[in-house]
Each structure stands twice: as C-alpha cells, then as structure tokens.
C-alpha cells in the first residue's frame, strides 16, 4: 500500500512535470503577445518593453520555464494577464465551486446510475433494460445547453421552484469558508438557511451535469453486473439459498463495482472538465468559464495554473481509484502486503 502510494506520487511528479513542460512550450508557440494583452491596445513600445521585462518575456523560453518551475515550487503560479490577479487566488476562488458541482453531479449520477445499471442487468433485454439504455444514452447525446435551458425554463420559468443561477441567494451570506463547499460549510457552521439556499441552487445544475455522465456509469454497471451475475460463485450462493437483495447487492453488486471504479474515476475527471457549459448556463461561479476566457485571452499563467491543477487532480483521482480498488478487492490488498 505504502509502496503503491509512493509509486503514484512518483508518477504525479513525472506527469505534472511533463504536462507543465509540454504546455509551457506549446503555449509559447502560439501567436499572441501576453504583454500586449496586459497593457492594452494603445500602449507605447516603451511600456510594452517594461511589461515584457516584468513578465520575463524578454528572456529565452527555457529560462522562463526554469523560473516558472521555481516559482511553482515556492507556491507562486504567477499573475493572470487577463484579471491581473495572482493565478492561485483566482483558482482557489473558482475551484471549490466547480468541485462542489462536479461532486454533487457525480453523486446524483451514482445514485441514479448504479440502480439503473443493476436494473438493466437483472432485467436484461426486457423493458427496464431498454428504458435504462435509452434514458442514459439520451443523456450523453443531448447537448448540455439544451437540457440545461429546458430545465431552467421548467423549474425556474414556469414552476419557480428553483433559482436559475448562482450558488446561493444574493442576500444570504455564504457560510464561513472551511472547505469551500457551501453545502458542507453551511452545515458545519449550522446555518440552515444558507444550506437550504445552496442546496436549491446546486440541484438543477448538478442534475443537468449528471445526466450527461449517467450513461457511462449505467453502461458499466450493467456490463459488470451481467458478468458477475454469470459467475460461478453467484450460482453457488443461489444454490445455498441466498437470493433477493442480499444476492444482488452483497454478492453481485459489490464485485461488479470493482471494474466500475475505473470508469467512474475517469468520468469524474471529465465531469470536472466538462462543466464549462453547465457553469455558463447556470451562472455557476466555477472554473470552466474562467478557463475558456483565459484561453481566448492567451492568459498563459492562468492556463498553466489550470493545467497544473487538472493534471494533479488527474493523478490524485487515479490514486483514489487505486485506493478504492484496494478497499474493494482484498486480493490486491494482500498481494501488496507480502
């Protein structure tokens, strides 16, 4: 276990280093002068030169890279060209919102996807199987802006049950920041009003986002359930009188979830990345829009910071996936202990 974590962390260093390296040099191939973007259109050459000097852009690329890496190690991700604020501040402001949304969506997707997948497997080739397939496939195929707007129209426009945008009502003070997740922070500080409000706000976007991820989970659960249900030990258990829920959940699902974990891990990664449109439609203060704007501004420090964050996140998610494997599959646990 320790060995595995060490290995993963080594991989983290490797991947993160590689990613920053590639992205740094890629971003320097791209035409577009960050100094220009920073000083505005009417600046003189003199000002430009000065800013270039400040940004270190007048130095050779590799020196810039070394400087960048040095700064990153000391916790400085640089200053955004677009917002002219430290990238780290921007990311820490936006990231928790994205993460909270992604996790909520992920939770909903699991909550619906797993039972749906189980149902589809148990009722293979019958109505519920077809239903779950159509339902989940329509999820991946439907453009998010579409389902998003329909949901806003319905629940906000006509029914007025849920708010259309934001994380919390404008006049409610967000809870004291502990985790950055409003739902958790409001519970921690015992602010029920804030909790209710943030719950109301997160529900629609999370629903929309999860709909797009449902297919992956449902599909995988169905496939691995079918595989597990066909295995000998299920038959043994049945022959020994195990049946019903115990059979389905304690015997089958637990093992069916093992291969699902990988898929789910990857899908969580794509949730993080794929929240852009959802965030735009629901005015969700996340990273998606920040990044897209940064890209169109060629805001290198912001792009690099985001890339760094995502690649670290990717490796961490992988680590979590592996740890989950360990938890679920005793065989792995034992083999590594030896």
């Amino acid at each position, binding site marked *: 276990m320790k060995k595995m974590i060490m290995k993963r962390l080594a*991989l983290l260093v*490797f*991947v*993160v280093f*590689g*990613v920053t390296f*590639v*992205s740094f040099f*890629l*971003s320097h*191939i*791209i*035409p*577009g002068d960050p100094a220009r973007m920073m000083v505005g259109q009417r600046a003189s050459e003199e000002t430009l030169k000065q800013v270039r000097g400040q940004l270190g852009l007048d130095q050779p690329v590799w020196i810039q890279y070394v400087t960048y890496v040095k700064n990153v190690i000391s916790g400085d991700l640089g200053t955004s060209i677009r917002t002219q604020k430290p990238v780290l501040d921007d990311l820490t402001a936006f990231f928790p919102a994205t993460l909270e949304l992604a996790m909520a969506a992920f939770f909903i997707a699991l909550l619906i996807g797993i039972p749906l997948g189980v149902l589809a497997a148990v009722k*293979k080739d019958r109505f519920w199987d*077809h239903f779950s*397939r*159509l339902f989940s*496939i*329509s999820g*991946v*195929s*439907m*453009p998010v*802006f*579409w389902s998003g*707007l329909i949901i806003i129209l319905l629940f906000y426009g006509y029914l007025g049950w849920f708010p259309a945008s934001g994380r919390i009502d404008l006049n409610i003070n967000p809870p004291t920041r502990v985790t950055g997740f409003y739902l958790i922070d409001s519970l921690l500080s015992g602010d029920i009003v804030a909790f209710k409000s943030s719950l109301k706000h997160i529900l629609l976007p999370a629903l929309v986002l999860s709909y797009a991820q449902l*297919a992956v989970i449902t*599909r995988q659960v169905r*496939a691995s359930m*079918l*595989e597990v249900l*066909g295995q000998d030990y299920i038959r043994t258990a049945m022959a020994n009188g195990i049946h019903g829920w115990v059979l389905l959940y304690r015997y089958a699902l637990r093992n069916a979830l093992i291969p699902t974990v990988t898929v789910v891990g990857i899908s969580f*990664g794509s949730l993080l*990345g794929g929240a*852009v449109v959802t965030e735009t439609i629901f005015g969700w203060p996340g990273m998606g829009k920040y*990044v*897209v704007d940064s*890209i*169109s501004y060629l805001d290198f420090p912001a*792009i690099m910071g*985001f*890339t760094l964050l*995502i*690649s670290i996140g*990717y*490796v961490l998610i992988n680590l979590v996936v592996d740890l989950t494997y360990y938890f679920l599959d005793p065989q792995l646990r034992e083999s590594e202990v030896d």
Partner: protein
Amino acid sequence: MSAEIQTVKQIEKPITIHPVWYKLKNNKMTWIGFVIIFVIILTSLLAPVLTSYDPTKIYIVEKFQGPSGKHWFGTDEVGRDILSRILYGGRLSLGMGVLAILITAAIGIVLGTISGFFGGYIDQIIMRIMDMILAFPTLILAMALAAALGPSLQNAMLAIAIVKIPVYVRLARSETLVLREKLFVKSAITFGIHPVRIILKHIVPNSLSPVIIQATLDIGDAILMIATLGFLGLGAQPPTPEWGAMISIGWKYLLDFWWYPTFPGIFLFMSSCAFNLIGDGIRDILDPKSNS
C-alpha cells in the same frame, strides 16, 4: 460411416449463419441506430436533391423566419435555410467525427498493441505519455495544437485524435495483455514467427471488437468536440455549415428563435444517440462478457 457423414452435414448448415448476425438481427435498438445513421447519411449525401437552397447563401431579408412551408426548419440570423445547412453540415459533422475516430483508433491500436505485447520500457514510455495526455485538459491541448498549426477543421480533427488516443491505447493494450496469454499467440511464438507478424495477424484482429465498440460510442462525442472547437474558432471556419457551430451560435437565440438551435440539435442528438445505440448493440453482440 454414412450415418456419421450425415450428422456432420446436419451440423454444418445452421452454423453457417454466423451468431453475430443472428444476434444483430434480434437487436432492435441497434437497428434503430443503423436506420437513423443511414437516413442521416443518405439525406446529407442527397442534400443537393432534397433542398434547393444554398447552405452558404445569405438572404438578410429572410433572417430568423420560423419553420414554414418555404423553410421547413426556418432560417438563421442571416437568412440561410437551416434545413439545407443541416443536410450539408451532416456531411461534415458525421464525416469528420468518423474520420477523427478512425485515425485515433488506428493510432491507438498500433501503440496499444506494441505497448502490451512488448511490455518493459516501451510499455512504460508509451503509457506514461498517455498518462500525460490524459492529465492534460482536453480543451487546452486542442487549443494549443490548433493554435500552433492554425485553425482549421483538419487540425481540430487532429486535436481530437490526440486527445482521444489514450483511451484506445489503454483498450488495445489491455486486450493485448489478455491475448498475449492466449495459446494461439504462444503457439505463434513457439513457431518462431516474427512479433510484428504476430501483432498484425493475431493481436490486432482479435482486439478489434472492443475498439470498434469504443469507436462507435466515441463518434457522437467527437462530433460534439468538433462543434466545441468550432465554437472557439478552432474548427470549421464560417460560413461552412457544421452542426456544432450552428448550435453554438444558435443557442443564444433559443428563447426567441427556438428553431435555430433546436433542429441542428435534434440532428446532433439523433446521430449521437444512434452511434451510441449501435455501439451498445455491438458491445452486446461482440463482447463475450455480456453474453448469457
């Protein structure tokens, strides 16, 4: 002896119907998928016959007209007929999506089988690079690429291919790892057959089915990604009709001119759905794990 031959002959006949076809025949969902794709491909190929409008010709006076007998799907912000743009756009959207995935799958299979078959350092290097690609935010990689090579549909396709390669490499690799243990591969090794030949003859053909499944499922996604890149100015350049781009522009008008994003959206939805249905169907048919 004659009796033996007789039984043998009796066995022969039904076996000639390959089980795949039998299963396919009975899989309604997959057929629905095929029919949808077929219709979309057919209509987009027959676009010049089916519609008399030029998909790129601008008639400002007729902008934002709702669906009518004249314009079945209405017109867009510069008065172009949306139906004709959808039909012509189908060629591009579907074609490019399919092409992008084909390229990806091909590269992925090559790298994945090499990685899985030879193992060791080659495997490590390939897989670490794949890790890096996976860890790279898709959009940024695509942007950087398109920016470096100049924005065009071809480059958008290339970007998608690179972003999606790791999936196929992993898939092909894990298949190869399984196949490498199969006795027919071991046999081939004992015969002294060249590894490249083994890969081409045994590994690749036998690892195709999951790749095909994944590819089919990915096409819909690729179409969407091309659209996203198009929206960022890195895909098809206007006025080329392309579904994703149409939707990207049109969705701002959803509340007032619902038809603008809706019809291309329906087509996108239908084709993505169809590819997913086909992919799911093929998975059921080819994947021995899901067989009962």
